[in-house]
């Protein structure tokens, strides 16, 4: 039986009437890479902020590395966190940032230097250790933050959107580092992301979040398999009518989305021509049809009826509204 690194039950956070996180429960096993996937404003960051003792939960309980959240310092000593927004001191050098961290985490003086060199090597920044952070590129800063998060040898590392705003090449480098940490050093990793590919490639298990709730939780393969086959996306102005026609005919799940239908079928390659001929016979215009193996995006659409991208615009507005009421970050 695997040991739990994190156990969360009924965790909630309310900002006024907005339920940022609405009673989520999950557990993360030691040595796992666990992903929280969802659009901006889904409550991912709020969830890990609570687990990292940055925010008081409104309700619910959680244990991190065996310590309950009330035991601030014990939790803080056993976790590392890399924030979504940069949190380095630009006016200090890379090494000075690490040393500051070492001191506030009470790492014994003798171990500070060797430990700093060790983590710098891990992220490939040993050459730039004595440059001011303001001279670093975006990717270097992110790597330094990861290095800093590892200084005190945390059992659990939180990564909040670790590759947000990074170019594809740097993104892959960060993924490799995350894997190395996990496999070689046995660090349990919890990351939030709204990149499907990132969750798919990196995570052992994924919790998909929307509107503060977990709407699905499993391994990436099982989540995709849960759709029951290939995904056929049909763009049509007559989605309602086509849906009715298909419901009579086909053993498949059908869902209306903005601008069309999403049909899941075991053999998408065979179902697609049938759908087209049905539409043709009933005089329903089809603008496009697309067949593909299911992705996590499709899982999200299956559960919410919308794609993650579409959700973003509206949630940004929600966040802005929250920000303006004075709750800040």
């Amino acid at each position, binding site marked *: 039986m695997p040991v739990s690194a994190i156990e969360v039950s009924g965790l909630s956070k309310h900002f006024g009437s907005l339920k940022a996180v609405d009673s989520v429960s999950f557990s993360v096993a030691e040595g796992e890479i666990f992903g929280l996937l969802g659009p901006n404003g889904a409550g991912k960051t709020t969830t890990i902020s609570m687990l990292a*003792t940055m925010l008081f939960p409104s309700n619910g309980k959680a244990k991190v590395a065996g310590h309950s959240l009330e035991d601030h310092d014990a939790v803080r000593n056993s976790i590392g966190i890399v924030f979504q*927004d*940069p*949190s380095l001191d630009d006016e200090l050098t890379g090494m000075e940032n690490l040393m*500051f961290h070492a001191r*506030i985490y009470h790492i014994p003086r003798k171990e500070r230097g060797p430990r700093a060199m060790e983590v710098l090597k891990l992220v490939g920044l040993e050459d730039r250790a004595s440059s001011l952070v303001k001279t670093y590129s975006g990717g270097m800063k992110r790597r330094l933050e990861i290095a800093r998060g590892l200084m005190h040898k945390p059992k659990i590392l939180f990564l909040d959107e670790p590759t947000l705003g990074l170019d594809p090449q740097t993104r892959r480098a960060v993924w490799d580092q995350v894997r190395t940490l996990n496999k070689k050093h046995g660090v349990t990793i919890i990351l939030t992301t709204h990149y499907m590919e990132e969750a798919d490639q990196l995570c052992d298990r994924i919790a998909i979040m929307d509107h503060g709730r977990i709407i699905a939780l499993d391994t990436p393969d099982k989540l995709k398999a849960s759709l029951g086959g290939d995904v056929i996306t049909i763009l049509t102005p007559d989605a309602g009518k086509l849906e009715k026609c298909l419901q009579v005919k086909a053993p498949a799940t059908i869902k209306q989305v903005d601008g069309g239908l999403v049909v899941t079928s075991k053999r998408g390659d065979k179902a697609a021509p049938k759908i087209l001929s049905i539409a043709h016979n009933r005089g329903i215009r089809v603008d496009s049809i697309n067949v593909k193996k299911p992705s996590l995006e499709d899982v999200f659409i299956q559960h919410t009826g919308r794609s993650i991208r579409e959700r973003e615009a509206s949630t940004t507005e929600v966040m802005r509204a929250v920000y303006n009421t004075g709750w800040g970050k």
Partner: protein
Amino acid sequence: MSFLSDAYTIWAREMIRFWRQRARVISSLAMPFFWLVFIGYGFGGSLKLPGMDYTKFLAPGVVGMSILFTGLFTGLSVIWERQFGFLKEMMVAPVSRTSIMLGKTLGGATIAVLNGLVMYIIASAMGMIDFTIALGVPLVFMALTALCFVSIGLMMASRMRNFEAFQALMTFLIVPTMFLSGSLFPLASTPGWMQAVSYADPLTYGVDGLRGALLGASYHSLWVDFWLLSAFAVFFLLLGAHYFRKSAN
């Protein structure tokens, strides 16, 4: 012990930053320097004070003003760090909020006192005030004044999320604090209501104490200045710590 060593770590970082940005910090002395020169020589000729030159009278006032400015603007660095994230690095660490607050306060106060000292050296180099290295008592008054205004600045910053609001508030705070303190003119010759209000201004006692220590002439007695200024400093330190803790959660 980790409480004090944590505060020291925070303080040490402020010192490194100060040293790296010394050009920027020194430029914040431009304002009091202009006051010293233009007000000092401008009004100096036509203002006759009993027993001393106006420039001599003004110099400790300007030292106090530079401490007021740099002290209050320490708050700006907290807003900056909140916006640009470094505050989170401290907040998620296993250190108490109070030691973060203490480290930041002492860091800001150290820088404010250094600025005050530089102003004093400039004023004495210009021959406005006699130079001495026996600065023990003046330093006490500078440090207490700095603690007061750094705490006030941090307290304001912990209630605010953006620079604009902070700047606006600072204008409303700085101008009355400066004029009501008797930095620029003797309080003895002001109307009764103004003298009354000046009693509520911590800078009054800071500047008066400096004048007493540097020139041997003060409005209140040095002990009155010392105790009242200390009381203000302790009061604002506690209040600042309270607000900082509250804002952190």
